[in-house]
């Protein structure tokens, strides 16, 4: 159905003998060239809501008292909504300070070892250097003086050639101690044996 404007246009065309073309508004608008521009815009996305931030959580305990949220969790989240990597909320209660147990004292326990000590020999150093007057002997010379030794209690003895010390073991089962002695080591000249051991009562001065 032609509009009122179209009717007016036709009448005007007839009046001006077709010299004037009256066009409708919609037709004019369609023939208007359309220009297109490209418009660049930066797009930024901003959250409309504040990010949730945990102020306290269920897994935090201190001295057996749980830290409560008391509405401090923002964004409508509850503490149970958050997870700590590696721990569930249930297991997190086991987290705590480990106590280091010092057990040095128990490690340094004193042991009784008399049997072992009885197996260790006693020693006597060669004291010849401390003789004020080394004794003069015929056909022999004094090499070493070991003193004092309870001769009757000696079970066995040996000369440590490396140190020059005399090693000996007392027989602790022998009740009798006897007298104490000096033990002298002599080098004998012209004898069958070049070395000779001599026990000398300790009350005798040897130098």
């Amino acid at each position, binding site marked *: 159905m032609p509009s009122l404007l179209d009717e007016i246009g036709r009448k005007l065309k007839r009046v001006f003998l077709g010299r004037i073309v009256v066009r409708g508004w919609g037709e004019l608008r369609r023939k208007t060239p359309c220009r297109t521009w490209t418009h660049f815009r930066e797009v930024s996305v901003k959250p409309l809501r504040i990010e949730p931030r945990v102020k306290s959580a269920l897994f935090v305990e201190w001295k057996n008292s749980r830290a409560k949220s008391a509405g401090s969790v923002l964004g409508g989240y509850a503490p149970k909504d958050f997870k700590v990597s590696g721990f569930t909320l249930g297991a997190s209660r086991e987290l705590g300070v480990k106590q*280091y147990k010092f057990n040095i004292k128990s490690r340094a326990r*004193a042991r009784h070892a008399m049997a072992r*000590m009885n197996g*260790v020999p006693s*020693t006597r150093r060669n004291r010849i250097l401390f003789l004020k007057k080394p004794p003069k002997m015929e056909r022999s010379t004094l090499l070493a003086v070991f*003193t004092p030794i309870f001769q009757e209690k000696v079970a066995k003895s040996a000369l440590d050639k490396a140190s020059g010390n005399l090693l000996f073991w007392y027989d602790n089962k022998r009740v009798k101690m006897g007298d104490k002695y000096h033990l002298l080591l002599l080098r004998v000249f012209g004898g069958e044996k070049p070395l000779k051991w001599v026990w000398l009562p300790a009350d005798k001065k040897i130098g």
Partner: protein
Amino acid sequence: MEHGRQLIGYLTVDTRENYFRGAALVTDSRGIPADFRYTEPVRPTRLERILYGSALDIYLKEDIILDNLISAVETKPSLWLLENEDLIGPVQKLSKLPAIAVEASARSPLEQSGQCEPTGEEGVFMLQADNISAPLRLTLSPENAPKISQFARILTASAEEMELMEPFSRVARALEAVLESESKQ
């Protein structure tokens, strides 16, 4: 006392190769053992070394090793002989017995056995314990220094029947034997 003889105690604390250990030997005046105790070697962990710091050495020696040894020894000596004078105070405090640090000297012998002379250093004396050896250097705590003649008599009497320093080497050999047997296990 045993058979009227004085008992002498020997205490050592050994610190080497990152471990601490100690031993106590009580002998009669002839050197015959009456009691022997030793502690297992204590090797502090790295964490313990860090936590205790410079106090570790003192703590282990005094509070741990000496305390364990002294309380374990059943045969109480008349006095303790030590190789290290730093231990005099702790040993006296723990044992309530006199402790004397003793070491061999290189000095020429004094005139006669039993002779004891002050050196000029406080609490330090030279004792000629027997006729044929060098004098011994004795270090006493200030409170025990006035009693030196009493201690000198005990030591001289023992030196007539034994070598006073010899039990220290016996203790060292016993500890080596213990360590050897423990390492084999």
